[in-house]
């Protein structure tokens, strides 16, 4: 299973002042702050680490349930430009980050579990109202799934459980497929398991 997270760099830059007093200390461990302060592009490192934590949070809460806001519990280690690990409560996740000038997209999967991700996409979404953007992403996910599996589109929908964890639901056989969806600014991504 996989969790994902995307950061639209323009939106992040406009919406968050990471240099604000207390901001880094509340989000990042001393080791992570070190990564940021020594990075060639500190702001890019801020959002890369953040997307590593967020993508791991998504898969961790899918596996173990619960909801909480504890960014410091997710300890990031940078392996190389695109690979990293995140440790939470001694459970280790492997992360892959994809950087462009417009966005950073990270996915996280538990090291100890066989990877079952069958599809992983990120893309730009048109300038629409928030609700329509969501519809756009859901349609794209469903289309992607039907093209891969040749199942009919009708009766497929995205549902969320009480903890807001999303699934692709098939009305026909009442099956559910874990999916991870991320959306920020003008960019979005999904994984299908």
């Amino acid at each position: 299973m996989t969790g994902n997270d995307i950061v639209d760099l323009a939106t992040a830059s406009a919406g968050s002042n990471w240099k604000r007093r207390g901001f880094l200390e509340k989000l990042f461990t001393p080791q992570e702050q070190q990564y940021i302060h020594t990075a060639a592009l500190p702001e890019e490192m801020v959002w890369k680490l953040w997307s590593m934590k967020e993508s791991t949070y998504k898969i961790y809460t899918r596996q173990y349930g619960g909801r909480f806001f504890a960014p410091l519990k997710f300890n990031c280690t940078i392996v190389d430009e695109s690979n990293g690990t995140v440790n939470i409560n001694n459970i280790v996740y492997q992360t892959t980050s994809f950087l462009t000038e417009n966005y950073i997209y990270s996915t996280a999967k538990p090291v100890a579990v066989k990877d079952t991700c069958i599809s992983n996409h990120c893309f730009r979404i048109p300038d629409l109202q928030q609700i329509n953007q969501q519809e756009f992403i859901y349609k794209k996910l469903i289309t992607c799934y039907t093209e891969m599996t040749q199942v009919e589109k009708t009766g497929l929908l995205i549902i969320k459980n009480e903890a807001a964890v999303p699934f692709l639901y098939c009305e026909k056989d009442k099956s559910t497929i874990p999916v991870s969806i991320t959306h920020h600014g003008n960019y979005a991504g999904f994984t299908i398991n």
Partner: protein
Amino acid sequence: MNTEELMESLKTIVKPYIKSEEGFKNMTADSDFLNDLKINSANLIDVILDIENEFDIVIDNTSMEKMLTVGSAIEIITTKLGEK
């Protein structure tokens, strides 16, 4: 400060970060910062820092973990103000 006054202060604090006008209009103690008010998770830190500044309190990591709804924020602020 009573709960009603706290609620008004909180509304002023969260307003710059909300992405759902509908959720903001109907904001109650049950409102979820992320799911109902559609506040971006990185901006949740701004909300927490703004709360710290506004009330001159420190929100420790354990309290921050529960900061997911308006009600839990009010509870945490009340506790921290009581400790002063």
